[in-house]
């Protein structure tokens, strides 16, 4: 018998709230820094590129051009990474629940078996519902 689950808590439990807050902090910091850098005409080049250019210049007299080993033209790169992000996100999320489900409570698999149906979508989230 699965415990009563409040769908609102599944959607917006403490885990999701913490993730949203961390996400917003990072994004605000990046956008604020980028705005400041734009105002002050800073280029924002990566230090890796700067030092690589310096190293290449010292070695061979000219800076190398930086491009991927497999170069995807135009927006195909955006498409490839969007698809990769989608499936990797699903896999990480799925694995995350298995790893971080509170082991002090009942085992995830035994809950699935006991309920006879359901699955991950009906499981209580780690921070949301008391089992």
């Amino acid at each position: 018998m699965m415990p009563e689950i409040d769908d609102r808590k599944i959607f917006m439990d403490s885990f999701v709230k913490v993730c949203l807050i961390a996400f917003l902090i990072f994004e605000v910091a990046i956008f604020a820094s980028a705005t400041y850098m734009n105002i002050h005409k800073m280029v924002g080049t990566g230090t890796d590129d700067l030092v690589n250019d310096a190293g290449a210049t010292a070695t061979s007299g000219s800076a190398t051009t930086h491009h991927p080993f497999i170069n995807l033209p135009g927006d195909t790169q955006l498409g490839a990474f969007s698809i990769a992000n989608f499936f990797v996100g699903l896999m990480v999320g799925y694995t995350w629940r298995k790893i971080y489900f509170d082991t002090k409570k009942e085992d995830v698999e035994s809950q699935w078996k006991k309920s006879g149906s359901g699955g991950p979508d009906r499981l209580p989230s780690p921070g949301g519902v008391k089992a």
Partner: protein
Amino acid sequence: MHIEDGILQPAWWISWYAATAAFVAPGLREIRKRIQENLYYKPFLAMVGVAVFVISSMHMPCPVTGSCSHPCGTPLASIIVGPFATVIISIVVLFFQAVFLGHGGITTIGANTISMGVCGTFVGYGLWKLFRYLNSPVWLAAGIAGLFGDLATYLASAGELALNLLHGGHLPFFRQWMVFFMGYGPTQFPLAIVEAIFTAGILHVMISRRPDLIPDFAPAHQAVPTKTALDSPGGR
């Protein structure tokens, strides 16, 4: 710290590959051993690999210097999955970054692994063990590991570039090393502090939720699913 193709002379990048190769067998052995001990380790290792890939690709702007750089994630990974396993993770991560992101290079995977996967890892892990041995709180030991593991990565990378100019360079080795490091340093130092904060934070959360996944904190009485237990009759 992602040195690109065409910068290091062949003698150097081959040497760095050879040095990296010395860590592969112990890394695979550590992974195999810990999978036997805890079946959660395998998916956990994959997730840590994803985390290192993302963290070491995540360019953060530094408005003081006007440039961007990234943390490494390997000090954190070394504490939670083991230092030698982190070297293997670094090789995989650096390969994908070189091939798909143009971040680093194919010939320089060895050199980049030595800086990020070996120096960052072992400096971070060593400091973590030292501070824990001295009974420091988790947040302090993890923070120190993150801070100095990050800086060690960039020091090593600058050292590799300086060694490349050992013959034929215009400056003595130490000065050349510091010149390259100062290319990274001003941007990297604030990011090393960020790395210290998230290393401490993530480790704190992990120890509170899944202490069994971290060897130093695994309670002796807590049963974790092992391969032996599953293989045996009546096992789960």
